[in-house]
């Protein structure tokens, strides 16, 4: 039940983390990374869940249209191009459905079926809300991702994967101090106020480029 409660008040969780982010230590970053991983999973699973409906409807319609596409023939010429387009639309839909299967297999469905759909919508709402209120900040953040060097991008990706300074440094085979200074530069370039901000920006960037 505790996991359920945790999940339920997830958005307020983040706010709390934001406030405490000023004195960001290792522990804080670890906790944030964990939050981030969980948030990414939740958002991903929610999006996958929301996508499934329209995709199911699309597959049904396209499948039926394709089945009957021979019937609405006019001239042989229009029929050919129509059938080609229907076939293409069908193939694209099948491709999307195959992707959807992969996504549905990759993400865990939220733990409690009875709250899954509602939670999914909550996350979506929270996500779009937080993006619209901070629209400008977020847009500026996305633009400044272009300023990062490959090294700094690597650092950011480790941070957003949930690595601590130490873990990230080991993976990049550099000293923890160097990693830390890279991270500080990333924060400066992106205009992140604190570690929480950085993780959230990384999350948004990741979601935006998904």
């Amino acid at each position: 039940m505790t996991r359920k409660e945790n999940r339920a008040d997830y958005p307020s969780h983040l706010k709390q983390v934001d406030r405490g982010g000023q004195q960001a230590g290792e522990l804080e970053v670890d906790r944030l990374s964990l939050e981030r991983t969980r948030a990414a999973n939740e958002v991903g699973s929610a999006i996958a869940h929301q996508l499934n409906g329209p995709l199911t409807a699309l597959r049904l319609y396209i499948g039926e249209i394709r089945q009957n596409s021979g019937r609405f023939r006019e001239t042989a010429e229009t029929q050919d191009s129509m059938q080609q387009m229907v076939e293409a639309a069908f193939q694209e839909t099948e491709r999307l459905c195959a992707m959807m299967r992969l996504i549905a297999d990759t993400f865990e469905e939220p733990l409690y079926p009875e709250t899954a759909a509602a939670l999914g919508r909550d996350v979506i709402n929270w996500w779009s809300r937080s993006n619209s209120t901070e629209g400008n900040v977020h847009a500026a953040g996305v633009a400044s991702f272009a300023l990062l060097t490959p090294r700094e991008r690597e650092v950011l990706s480790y941070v957003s994967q949930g690595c601590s300074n130490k873990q990230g440094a080991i993976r990049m085979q550099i000293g923890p101090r160097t990693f830390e200074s890279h991270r500080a530069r990333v924060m400066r370039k992106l205009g992140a106020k604190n570690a929480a901000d950085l993780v959230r920006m990384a999350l948004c960037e990741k979601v935006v480029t998904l």
Partner: protein
Amino acid sequence: MAALQLHGTERMPHLARATTRILVIDDDVCVSTAIQAILARHQYHTALASRAHAGIYAFQASQFDVVMIDLFMPGMNGLDTISRIRSKSAVPIIAMSGFRLRNSLDPDQDFLGMAILRGATISLRKPFSPAQLVAAIDRSLGLASSTESTMQ
């Protein structure tokens, strides 16, 4: 309630399908409308419910030959809905879900498998094709009559 709309076609009354009534319980109206459109082309009657409670109400208020239930709905979930309907009737139930597994690390937590345990006749993973949909309906009707005959 707007959740319950009865709809059907009487085009080919000589087919057994024309008298088959299907209840679709799914909170995503786009999905249930698509299912309805496809099934109407195959001469099935369908009724739609967008909430589990509305679905159970409709099921009690009218006669249905097959019930299709989405496993993830706000309010009462699909698994409980299956249990509720199964406790009252032997009607074939088709469970629908986009997610087969609850947890990719634990293959035992299979939603569609759980639906079968709760009494669903057939499970259908979303997104499904029109052919899969019609095959599931036909199969559930066949299974239902065969289980009936074995029970007799």
